[in-house]
């Protein structure tokens, strides 16, 4: 079953066609990447895939559900989650609370139950806390559960973003530059983490990334964007050697007369 599908989506901002004719189809447990120079439209694609922007053409499907005119929270309800390029944690909340917050829509007690603490209020709270702790333990953040999210070191903040997205129990998770600002050790950790998410939790993953080594080592399929167009796509070996890709990044024609 396709967990995420973009069917020829484009978006136009006034006179600017930021993304043109982008298509994608991912199935369960697949790991794809979108790369491209800065300003190519990668985050814009993400925003369309998550409901923050509405494509002016084309359609997005999450778990085979048509998502036109849906709000972002509906995308999450349909089984998709994302992280952000500049971290968007709930800074004044604790690490644990951040993870709990992502489970709001899976919480099953009514307003009345909340006010009076009757019904399954206590059960649900316990269940959510437990599930949050399991996720935190899986990524070694449980000791810092009462720290304020904004006080974590940068690398752990990024980890928390991922854990939080996972708490929504998605089928597919979108990671926007998960390795940004990290040193090589940390990048290895991220690679391991992403692999665990796929193997142990069974999620499909779509990443935007600039670290080529990381992308080439874990992605099964890559799409390359430049100025909103898909200039190349395929398995890593193909994309790495595609002259159009090299030109987009380096701006130099491969067959130079001086070469």
């Amino acid at each position, binding site marked *: 079953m396709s967990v995420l599908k973009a069917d020829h989506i484009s978006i136009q901002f006034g006179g600017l066609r930021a993304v043109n004719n982008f298509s994608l189809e991912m199935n369960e447990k697949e790991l794809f990447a979108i790369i491209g120079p800065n300003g190519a439209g990668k985050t814009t694609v993400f925003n369309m895939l998550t409901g923050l922007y509405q494509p002016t053409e084309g359609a997005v499907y999450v778990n085979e559900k048509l998502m036109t005119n849906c709000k972002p*929270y509906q*995308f999450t309800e349909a089984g998709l*989650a994302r992280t952000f390029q500049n971290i968007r944690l709930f800074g004044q909340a604790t690490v644990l609370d951040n993870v709990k917050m992502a489970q*709001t*829509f899976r919480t099953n007690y009514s*307003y009345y139950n909340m006010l009076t603490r009757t019904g399954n209020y206590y059960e649900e709270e316990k269940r959510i806390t437990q599930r949050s702790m399991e996720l935190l333990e899986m990524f070694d953040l449980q000791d810092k559960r*009462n720290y304020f999210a904004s006080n974590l070191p940068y690398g752990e903040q990024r980890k928390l973003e991922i854990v939080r997205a996972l708490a929504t129990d998605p089928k597919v998770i979108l990671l926007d530059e998960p390795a940004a600002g990290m040193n090589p050790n940390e990048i290895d950790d991220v690679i391991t983490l992403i692999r665990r998410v796929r193997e142990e939790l069974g999620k499909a993953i779509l990443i935007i990334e600039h670290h080529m080594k990381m992308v080439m080592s874990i992605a099964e399929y890559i799409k390359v964007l430049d100025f909103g167009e898909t200039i190349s796509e395929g398995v890593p070996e193909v994309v790495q050697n595609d002259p159009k890709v090299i030109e987009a990044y380096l701006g130099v024609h491969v067959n130079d007369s001086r070469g």
Partner: protein
Amino acid sequence: MVKTMKWLKRNSEVIIIPFIYILIAGLQRAGILNNYIIQVIMLGGINIIMTESLNLVNGLTGQNSIGHAGFMAVGAYVSALFSKVIFNAGGLPPTSQTLVFLLATLMGGIAAAIFGYLIGTPTLRLKGDYLAIVTLGFGEVIRSIIRITPPVGAARGMTGIPKLANLFWVYLFVILAIYVCRNFMDSSYGRACMAIRDNEIAADTMGINTAKYKIIAFVTSAFLAGVAGSMYAHTLRYLHPDVFGYTKSTDFLVYLYAGGVGSISGSILGAFTLTALPEVLRFMKEWRLVIYGGLLVVIILFRPVGMFGGNEFSFLKLKTGGIKSVGFSDLFKRKRHQELSNKEGIQ
């Protein structure tokens, strides 16, 4: 026996809360606290309810509502109208007075909640300063409408409201309001609101229907404000629309921020202290409001987390938030400067 003692120790508020009431009531009965002071205490309680309600919207959900007095006005006038009409119909035995009062309060709360819905819905798209202005505007519009409505006394005000509120009822509603807010905060609803406050876009993306929760916060807050309005009407027994203008709304803003925005305990402290302060300073006559204003600036400049430092009383047993909770005895100890980071708090 030992088990009961242990339970009581952990849930000491079960004893302390009634005790405070009995203490105040006793002092009143003994004539040590005169009626004026009792009324100040009751007004302090009403302000606590209002500040708590404002905390739900401004503190918890991070919205900027500065016209809250409008909801109080709706609650006050609707409940007063109800009880006046019933009483003027005549011939009610004293035992049913309580029922009338509770019904009036309920109606005041519901009416205010309806307004909360009416105002909350169109303003969902607005952010920050614009939201502030529109809520201010709504508050003033409500006031203007009351001013021109003859059946509720228009610009002359409404008199003759039966004296149905007393220390007991106000105290009870204050405690109820505190627990409502605590239950709200310590639940998925409260957490959703905090997520909206901290990062609305991220909240949207994490499956939180921001529109729904903003409205829930607004309506709950308006209901509480309506209840406070009913208390107010039946305590002072006279209502005038100009009382519920922008100045009153800013009062509650001041209590909230001075006490510590986002914190339930802070709202209690802020509201009660700053209600009592002008009375205590009354001997300074014209200068007391000058001091009041200056104090506000000083607090904001030098203690921005608020008087209570964003902490919460431990009796509230809040699981949300990593702030060290404060027990009653801690209040009397020298408070170490709270580092709001890396705290192993409650869990």
